[in-house]
């Protein structure tokens, strides 16, 4: 997020939520948005194919067809330009490449956009007017924007949108991609990505490599590595032989489960470090018992770049160990066996950590945006959001206030591209996937929480009443959902949350996981799977 949650909730004059089921996926922030609408009359526009809960608070709900976000955004920007509502001063001073961008947007008159998105022309005008007259408007999104073959283009178009309106770098404005997992922001910040070292220093940069080679005392690879969605097929191609998986469950969370199972089956050696025997554990050769958040001390970074302490409350269960302890011990054993790689006298070559505060000191030394974030400061009650480069820096609640990272903000010309998999005669409906309020991702934790299972104990598939009528479904009947890759059976939830022709399924339960059906069509840049659009056939069992 470029801004903070409380900043957005307090100061935005309007919220534009596109592709985020905020009240179910970020419930406490979702509740703050409800209160902003209720208590101070902020406007709310929700663009989502589903009538998600927060639409109850919306000034306007745009129900675009899944996979047509670029057309929708370009259509809104067309109207903004047509009416002269763009922020001319901001565009002039802070951006470049406006003309090329404008030429593309002008290809999206409202009538054409209405045809692509099925959002009526008058609603497009209404939305554009609300947004343009509410300064600033905050734009919020999540995986509903990114999990498409055009995920990156969707995000760029949202950046276009906020630059056009001059909403960047301002309290209550900005771009708010809501990060899903508790520490997905931190995992990215810490170099848990194939193309970057900590703090997004590219592995392809000579300078960055030299820095880490000096710090760690080892040569490093200049070539970008494989993403998770490339590693799996890489196993079948013979490229990947061994894997070390820390607290992840690809069998539940990766697309096309049958294919993933096949890949893991073929893998020569899999080490899984976990707190539960997850669905992926069946394919592991070694299981290392890690520990839960209650059993260790360190930090998580939330969606607004806020680094916060996690504190040990109980001893690790049984002989389980904190994950950092396991990693350090394994690294030391490996360095004995691969002795030629690491020069022991480099400043951060070693792995002798007494606690996570020591690891954080090393992070401070090599991670510019975390340079001044120490356990000591956090324990003293300081509230720090990165970038926080030095020990006396107060942190940065709002990004891009004076200039963008690259200097001027660059408008990108973005065209609509239809989804990779479209309905046809055999698979006439669209399935979209996601989570529900009561469960978390692959469900390893929430399926082991008794009360939660009492409220939501099995997978439900959302089905529109019109489609239910056609199928003869009149309650919680069992449906068979089939895609080109597999089939699941789950109970129907007949509801107008989904429009006719669309079903919504989750991946919390192994016996009926939506990922049995999804496909690994990826965004060419981010390699994210297009979970939000799968062609399926729905039958009554």
């Amino acid at each position: 997020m470029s801004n903070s949650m409380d900043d957005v909730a307090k100061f935005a004059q309007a919220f534009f939520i596109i592709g985020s089921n905020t009240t179910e996926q970020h419930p406490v922030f979702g509740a703050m948005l409800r209160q902003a609408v209720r208590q101070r009359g902020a406007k709310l526009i929700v663009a989502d194919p589903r009538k998600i809960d927060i639409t109850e608070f919306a000034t306007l709900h745009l129900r675009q067809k899944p996979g047509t976000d670029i057309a929708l955004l370009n259509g809104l920007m067309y109207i903004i330009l047509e009416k002269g509502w763009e922020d001319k001063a901001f565009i002039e001073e802070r951006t470049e490449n406006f003309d090329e961008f404008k030429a593309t947007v002008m290809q999206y008159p409202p009538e054409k956009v209405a045809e692509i998105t099925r959002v009526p022309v008058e609603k497009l005008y209404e939305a554009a007017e609300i947004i343009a007259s509410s300064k600033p408007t905050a734009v919020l999104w999540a995986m509903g924007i990114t999990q498409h073959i055009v995920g990156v283009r969707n995000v760029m178009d949202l950046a276009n949108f906020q630059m056009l309106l001059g909403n960047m770098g301002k309290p209550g404005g900005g771009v708010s991609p809501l990060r899903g997992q508790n520490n997905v922001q931190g995992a990215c910040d810490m170099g848990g990505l194939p193309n970057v070292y900590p703090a997004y220093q590219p592995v392809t940069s000579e300078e960055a490599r030299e820095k880490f080679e000096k710090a760690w005392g080892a040569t490093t690879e200049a070539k970008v590595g494989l993403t998770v969605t490339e590693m799996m097929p890489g196993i079948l191609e013979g490229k990947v032989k061994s894997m070390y998986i820390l607290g992840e469950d690809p069998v539940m969370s990766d697309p096309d489960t049958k294919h993933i199972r096949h890949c893991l089956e073929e893998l020569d050696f899999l080490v899984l470090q976990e707190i539960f025997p997850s669905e992926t554990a069946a394919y592991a050769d070694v299981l290392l018992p890690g520990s839960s958040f209650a059993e260790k001390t360190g930090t998580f970074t939330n969606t607004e770049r806020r680094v916060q302490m996690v504190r040990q409350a109980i001893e690790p269960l049984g002989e389980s160990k904190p994950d950092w302890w396991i990693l350090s011990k394994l690294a030391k054993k490996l360095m004995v066996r691969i002795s030629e790689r690491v020069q022991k006298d480099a400043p951060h070559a070693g792995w002798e950590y007494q606690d996570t505060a020591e690891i954080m000191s090393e992070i401070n030394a090599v991670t510019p945006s975390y340079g001044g974030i120490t356990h000591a400061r956090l324990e003293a009650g300081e509230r720090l959001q990165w970038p926080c480069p030095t020990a006396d820096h107060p942190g940065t609640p709002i990004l891009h206030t004076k200039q963008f990272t690259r200097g001027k903000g660059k408008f990108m010309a973005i065209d609509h591209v239809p989804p990779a998999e479209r309905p046809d005669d055999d698979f006439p409906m669209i399935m979209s996937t996601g989570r529900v309020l009561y469960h978390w991702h692959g469900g390893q934790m929430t399926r082991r929480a008794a009360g939660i299972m009492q409220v939501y104990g099995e997978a439900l598939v959302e089905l529109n009443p019109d489609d239910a009528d056609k199928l003869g479904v009149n309650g919680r009947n069992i449906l068979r959902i089939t895609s080109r890759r597999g089939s699941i059976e789950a109970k129907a939830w007949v509801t107008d949350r989904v429009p006719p022709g669309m079903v919504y399924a989750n991946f919390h339960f192994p016996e009926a996981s939506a990922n049995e059906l999804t496909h690994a069509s990826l965004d060419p840049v981010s390699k994210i799977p297009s979970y939000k659009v799968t062609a399926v056939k729905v039958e009554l069992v």
Partner: protein
Amino acid sequence: MVKLMINGRAIEAKEGMTVLQAAQEAGITIPTLCDHPDLESFGGCRLCVVDVKGWRTPMASCTLPVNEGMVVETHSPAIEKSRKTILELFMSNYHDSGYENGQKEETQFMHWVKHYGLDVEKSMAAAPHYTVDSDANPFVFVDLNKCIQCTRCVRACADIQGRFVWSMAERGFNTHPVAGADTDMLDARCESCGACVAYCPTGALDNKMSLGAGVPDKLVMTTCTYCGVGCQFELNVKDGKVIRVTSTEKAPVNGNHLCVKGRYGYDFIHHPERLVKPMVRRYLLEGKKPVVSDQSSVTSGPWDWVETEWEKALDIVADKFADTRTKFGADSMGFLTSAKCLNEENYLMNKLARQVIGTNNIDHCARL
């Protein structure tokens, strides 16, 4: 700024403040029950009444704005007597059936009852008026015999969660909160966030999972393990076990608010299926990996899980990884780090892949 006198002290307060807030800022404690700084003022319980010079009747300080020149007495004998009477009236409708509550400490109501010297046993109602545990919600325990009609649950649901599950029904002696049109909470579209429990001052709404769990040995402030909002809360620990989660106004992002997963999704921590010992497949201890067509379906013989010591398990992993690296190169290895783990742990995974092994094949579920 507004100048006023409270208990003979000259006090300056910001315009628009209530007398209660002004007194609190000056370090004067006025008893309250229905008031909470996170919720809209209600002025219902009358416990916070104060005398204002020149006014005929005592006023509820939680809804009384400060005025220039106001002269306020917060603890005059008459006021204290009226507070005691109010508490006696509450107690005459209150019934405690004797179960051990799910709150971490004495409730706010009991605190004032004892403070004003009431004998709990003697002053409470002889028999319950409502069914104890009257709602099916697995997280929220409802015992309206402890309700004092302060409406904090109603306001918490509306002003914090924005869900409007609770409202007050009936009149007079029978006034009580109902969910929806007097149905179960979940049927009234409750999202089980537990805000109503967190704000209830009497234990009429309580944490069902924690009933009888006792008083914690310690409270540990930490960050939630579920979503990216980064809520903080206190883990209540007793005898090495997490027995409840309590919200706190000290949490930077969320204050007293949490969602169902954060507040009530913690029992996975002690689930019997937790992995508590390193395990390796038997073939790793005995020799060569056998060839099978479907590894996941084989559960015996060479694929048995065998518990081992840490040294042994990590030696096996180190041997295999070093061997793979020698035979097929560093890029034949893949590392998935974890968005559930600490920054420090993610940094180490990145260091392990890039420094020790020498590959950039590291990723996690950011895309999934």
